[in-house]
Each structure stands twice: as C-alpha cells, then as structure tokens.
C-alpha cells in the first residue's frame, strides 16, 4: 500500500499539466473534476497510506520510496525519493485533506472566473509541490518543493493579473521569500560541504556525530536554514509579504497563506531540529523571533480594516506561536498547533471568502449585521474564531495553544517572559478575533447580500468547522487525564520535551489564565467594538503604525528597494561600455588627426618625405 506514495505527488502533477496544456479547451465541469478530483484522490490515497502506516508501522516507523537518482556528481547524489514518517504523514494528511476541502470549495467559489482551469492548474501544482516538500528525503528535493510552492504562491497571488496591485504583491511575495531561499540555498551548500550529504536523516545523524553543541559551524548552518524558514513563514524580519499576499483569490489565501505553505518554515525547523539543538543560540533566536512576531502581528491585526488582512496578520501571529514552540524545543507542540491552525484558519478564510463573495467588500467598517443573512458564514466565523482565540475545552485551538503556553514555561528553555508574552498574545488574539466578528456580523447592516453559497462551499465549511472543534482531541494534556496521542505518535521523530520548570506557574494555572485571557479579550472586544459603539476606525498614531504593519514596508522601501532601483536604472546603459566606446572614439580621433596630414599638396608630401628621413636619421643618431 505504501508503494502508492508516489501517486500522491504524481496525480496532482498530472492534473496540473493537463489543465495547463488543455485547460482552455475543457468544460468547467471537467476542469472541476480534474482539479478537485485529483486532490481528492490524493487525499484518499493518503488516508489509505496513513491507515496502513498506523495499522502496521514499517520498520523504524519510516518508509522510504526511492524513485530515481536526481543527479550524481562528485559524491553529491541527491535522490528523488520520498520519506514517510509520522511527522511527514501528519503534514501529508493535513495538506491533502485541507487541500481537498479548499479545492472543493473553489469548485464553486471560482466558478465564474475566466481563469478557472488556470486556477486549478496552479492549485494542483501547489499541492504537488507542497507534498514534495513534505515528503522529500533530502534537502535538495525539499528545496525543490520549497521553491515550487513559492512559485505557485506567486502565481496565485497574481492570479488576477490585470490589477497591477496584485502583480506587485505577487512579486513582493516572491522576492521577499527568495531572500530566505538564498540563505537556505547557502545553508545547503554549507551542509553538503561539511557533511557530505543532503539526505536529511544522514545529515542530521552526521551533524549530531561530528559537530559539538554550540559550535560555530552548527550555528551558521542553523542560522541559514532559519533564514529560509523565516521568509517562508513570514516571520520577522521578512513578514511583510504575507498581508499583501491576500491579493490572491480567497481559497488561495486559505490553502497557501494560512494552512500549508507558510508553515513550511515550521516544518523545516522541525525536520532539522537536530541542527537547532546543536545551535542553542539560534534556537533561542527562533523563540525570540516567534514571540516578537506574534506580538507585533497581533497588534497589527488589531488595527486592520481589511478582513483578509486581519486574518493574514493573525496567521503571522499564530506562526509566531509555532516558532516560539520550536525555539523552546517543543517540536510536537509546534506541529500540533500547525495542524489545528490549518483547520481553523482555513475555515476562517473560507468563511471570509463567503462573506466577500456575498457582499463584494473586504472592509470591516463597511460591513456589519451580516449574521442574519450569512448564517453559515457567521457560525463558521464563530467556531473558527473561537478556535483561534482558544475557547477552552471545546475548540482545537485551545489545546494546541495551551500546550505551547505550558511548555513555554515548563520546557528547559522556557521562562516566565515567554509565558507572559504568550499570554499577552492570547489576549490580543481573542481581542482582534472578536473585533473582526463583531464588526462584520453585528451592528447595522450596511451592505446588500448578493450571493448565497452552494453545496460545495457548505460541505467544506461544515467539515472544517467540525475539524476545528474536534481536531484538538488528538492530543489532550496528560495533566488533566488526557492522552497526548499525537505527541506520542511524533515522539519517534521529534523528541519530547522534558518538563523541568515546575514552579509557580503550573499547567492548571496556565489553562485557567488562558481561559481568562480569552474571556477578557472577548469582553474588551465587546466593549470597544460592540454593536453599540460608534463604528469609526481609530485614527491615532499608534493604530496608524499598526495598520501599516509597524512600518516595515516603508523601511525596506527606503533601505533596499529604492537604492537598488536607482542602481539598476543608473547602470542600465552599461558603464563598462563607456571606456570601450571611448577607445573607439580615440581611434576615430587618431583617424581625424592623421587625415590632416593628407593635404593633397605635393610640397607637403615632399616635406613629409624629408621629415621622415630626418626622423629616421635622428633615431639612428640617438640609438647609436
């Protein structure tokens, strides 16, 4: 059964190719079947594989499928091979399933778009790339997937290519992530040069053997990989592309910019956690980055007017949580939060899509009172929002976030600061989530609802709602008699965290304070943005700053973009050409000067003759 693994990649690729080549000639129905169906089949196969994997785990809990040797040169032999272990299986399941649901949703959502086939071609290609990324057994193949998803993200952000705004956003996303990719690539160079392989398991093994903890080489390697991860996962300082990426169609935002691609960085770090363990300073940096990003993004989310941008900042913030977990060594907690986040954030985006589709408006301050007419969307928002904000016990988000919060204190690297920051973040999350819901669904209705959602949309929303609710139960805190099934499952790959700090902050207290913070946020939101408040966006300086995402864009524009454009513009005429043309000028000058000697006068010529004679005689004199 496991041998079918390659099909999970191949089917979406095939479908994408077909759609790209012949898409314009196919009917919408066929396109839909191909586009969504291929991912569906992939999901089914994944399910099968997952079942087999769980039922009869292969040796060492690992299954490797070698397809062919990609290239072989001087001891460098990366393969096209897939590596299936609990972590990748988890990822695979989430990607294919959430992916399928979103495809299903898109069948309806994108139905009237002229680029229907193109959309599904991109989406399928994305799924294939993402799966490649997840399943890659070596870093080079992972890099292939990594760039592949980047490409698809670029293509999908710029899907509505007629609007220059979208095109710019796409370019921005691609370029900013490419910064990280370059660092990642250099990291690969370093790893191969020092370790002699890019096979992930071998490399990790050798690194653990050869490098001592804290050695500079390990630090450098980890830092370079972190660079890649930061860019892809939109963490500080390369987070700026994600809010703009919302220019793409909403299903894209749901799939790529919330559920899957942006968490590739998290996955990368988890995969190469050995390196990060060897480089504690970098690991600590991961935690810091996560924390700071989480807080800054949360503040920004608080000030956004565009519904999708709120969700985008929320995504950045939530990935900040995952980074925090990674930085603390709570690998499985990060993966757990990744999973739940995929569910509820996809749900939120899809629901937002329904709203946007219905009212053709993204500005929260222009919406309001939509809960009556968009009942399903409203409930989806409530459920997803609750999961996001961590409504205790009944939502998935609660469990995963709680795990991170607890480990931010209890883990070996944890301390009160991280815990406090996490709590603050949770408060902010609750606040901006309910601000969004309140602004959109309560208060006076300003907009007319033009479209109702169909079956495909409903199905996917409902399934995601239920997943957002029950997804958390795969890993419940053992302190309260739960079973951390997921953590145990992942433990063969990702070492569990020891709980060392059992001090004033107990898990009970964490849970209680998290619940309190949730409630506090809800209350504050009701106070500030409730239906009875005036619905004017605040104009103060701080909020302006938040709205602009802390001015990172402005800074980069001044610091990098403009100087580069200036250089490119100035040098466009190729300065190297100047001396060369100068040389040509000199020869022409020589021509002009010599031409003057050809006066046409015979007396002058005779003089020349005499002059020449005199000259060579003079030379003869001197040289004697």
């Amino acid at each position, binding site marked *: 059964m496991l041998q079918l693994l390659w099909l999970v990649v191949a089917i979406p690729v095939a479908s994408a190719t077909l759609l790209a080549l012949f898409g314009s000639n196919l009917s919408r129905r066929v396109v839909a079947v191909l586009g969504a169906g291929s991912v569906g089949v992939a999901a089914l196969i994944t399910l099968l594989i997952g079942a087999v994997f769980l039922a009869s785990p292969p040796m060492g809990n690992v299954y490797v499928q070698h397809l062919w040797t990609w290239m072989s040169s001087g001891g460098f032999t990366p393969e096209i091979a897939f590596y299936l272990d609990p972590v990748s299986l988890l990822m695979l399941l989430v990607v294919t399933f959430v992916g399928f649901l979103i495809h299903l949703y898109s069948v309806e959502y994108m139905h009237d778009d002229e680029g229907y086939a193109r959309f599904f071609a991109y989406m399928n290609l994305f799924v294939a790339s993402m799966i490649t990324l997840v399943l890659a057994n070596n870093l080079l193949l992972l890099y292939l997937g990594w760039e592949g998803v980047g490409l698809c993200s670029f293509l999908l952000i710029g899907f509505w290519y007629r609007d220059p705004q979208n095109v710019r956003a796409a370019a921005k996303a691609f370029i900013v992530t490419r910064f990280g990719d370059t660092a990642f690539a250099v990291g690969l160079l370093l790893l191969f040069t020092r370790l002699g392989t890019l096979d992930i398991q071998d490399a990790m093994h050798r690194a653990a053997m050869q490098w001592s903890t804290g050695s500079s080489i390990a630090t450098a390697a980890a830092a370079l990989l972190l660079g890649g991860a930061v860019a892809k996962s939109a963490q500080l300082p390369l987070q700026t592309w994600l809010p703009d990426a919302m220019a793409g169609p909403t299903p894209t935002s749901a799939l790529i910019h919330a559920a899957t691609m942006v968490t590739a960085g998290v996955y990368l770090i988890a995969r190469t956690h050995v390196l990060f363990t060897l480089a504690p300073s970098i690991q600590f940096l991961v935690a810091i980055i996560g924390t700071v990003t989480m807080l800054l993004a949360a503040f920004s989310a608080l000030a956004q007017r565009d519904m999708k941008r709120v969700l985008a900042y929320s995504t950045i913030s939530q990935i900040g949580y995952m980074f925090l977990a990674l930085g603390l060594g709570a690998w499985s907690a990060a993966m757990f939060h990744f999973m739940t986040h995929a569910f509820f954030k996809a749900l939120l985006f899809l629901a937002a899509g329904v709203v946007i589709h219905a009212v053709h408006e993204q500005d929260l301050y222009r919406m309001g009172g939509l809960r009556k007419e968009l009942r399903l969307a409203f409930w989806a928002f409530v459920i997803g929002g609750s999961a996001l904000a961590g409504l205790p016990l009944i939502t998935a988000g609660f469990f995963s976030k709680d795990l991170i919060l607890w480990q931010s204190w209890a883990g070996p690297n944890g301390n009160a600061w991280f815990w406090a920051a996490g709590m603050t973040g949770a408060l902010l999350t609750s606040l901006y989530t309910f601000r969004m819901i309140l602004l959109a669904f309560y208060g006076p209705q300003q907009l007319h609802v033009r479209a109702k959602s169909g079956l495909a949309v409903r199905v996917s929303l409902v399934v995601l709602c239920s997943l957002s609710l029950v997804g958390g139960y795969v890993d419940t805190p053992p302190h309260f008699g739960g079973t951390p099934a997921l953590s145990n499952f992942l433990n063969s790959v990702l070492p569990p965290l020891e709980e060392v700090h059992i001090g004033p902050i107990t898990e009970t207290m964490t849970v209680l304070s998290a619940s309190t913070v949730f409630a506090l946020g809800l209350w504050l939101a009701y106070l500030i943005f409730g239906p009875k408040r005036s619905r004017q966006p605040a104009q103060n300086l701080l909020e302006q700053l938040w709205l602009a995402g802390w001015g990172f864009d402005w800074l980069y524009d001044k610091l990098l973009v403009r100087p580069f454009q200036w250089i490119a513009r100035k040098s466009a005429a190729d300065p190297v050409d100047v001396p060369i043309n100068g040389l040509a000028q000199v020869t022409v000058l020589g021509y002009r000067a010599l031409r003057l000697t050809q006066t046409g006068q015979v007396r002058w010529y005779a*003089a020349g003759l*005499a*002059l020449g*004679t*005199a000259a060579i*005689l*003079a030379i003869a*004199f001197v040289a004697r």
Partner: protein
Amino acid sequence: MTTLFYLAGILAIVATLLAITQRHAVHALLYLIVSLLAVAVEFFVLGAPFVAALEIMIYAGAIMVLFVFVVMMLNIAEHAMEVERGSLKPRNWLGPALLALVLLGELVYCTATTRGTPSLTGVTGPKQVGEALFGNYWIGVELASLLLMAGLVGAFHLGRHRIAKEEKHHVTSTDATRTDTRSDLVHAGSGGTSHAA
C-alpha cells in the same frame, strides 16, 4: 686644387640658392646652369674629366635647353608670378629652411665624424669609364636604354593627349597619318637609344 674645389663648391651653392629664389623662370634656369657648370668644375677637380664634360654638354646643354624651351613655350603668366611672390616670404621659407638645415646638419655631422676626406688625386679618365661602362656595366647600359625608352614613350603618350584633345576642335585628319608620324617618332627615339647602347 683644394682651393678650386671649395671655390667651385661655394659657387655652386650660391648659384643654386639664387636659382631657387629667382622669381622668373628663365633667370632661375640661368643660375642653375651656372651652378651646373660649377659642379662640372668639381667633377674635374675630383678627377673625372669625362663626366665633367658630360655634365656641361648634356645637363647644362641639353636638359636645361629643354627647360628653357618649355618655359618659353608656356610663357608663364603674370598671375603665377604673383602667387610665387607670396611663397617667397620669409614665413614660408622658415620651415623648409629649418628642415633643410637639420638634414644638412645631420649629414655634415656624419661625414665629419668619419675619417678622411676624399682624396683629390688620381684621374679616372674617359677610357677607364668607357671600359667599365661596356665591361662590367653593359647590362646597366641596356637598362638605361630601356629607361630612356620608357621615358620617351611616356612623354609621348602624355603629350599625345594634348594633341588629341586639340585635334578634336580642329579638322579631323586621318587617323592613320597621325599614327604614322607618331610611331615614326617613337621608332626614331627607340632606335636612338638602342644605338646608344
């Protein structure tokens, strides 16, 4: 002897100088003939009486007369004189004079630095010259005749253009007669040279 040599030398130089500074062509030619005569004296002093005689006869005689003939024939217009006057101003002279001086200096320097002056003794008379000419140098004589032939044919051809051009305006005479006279001329010329050879 030596005195005569230098005297003649100075005379030649002065005469040449005058020759090239004269405005009127005939005057210049006269000065030139003086100069040539002076050179002939030089030759004589150098022990080459045969050459000296030839110098007087052919150079001063024949060639210069040819010049005079042409000058007379053309009767150079006054306007040309005006042009020449301009070119005789010191400004125009300066450069060439300087150049000539430099070259002269170089040559004088190199002759002065080499040992000895030409011996003024020993006469190489016509007999020796003749022997050399028709002994070792007979081929040279033949070549010289060819040279003269080339000169003649060339001069003739160039001259003919003029005639041909003029003829256009005149009554056309038969081509044959003209060709005949001219080829006679050529024939005579070449015959003459061959004869000399």
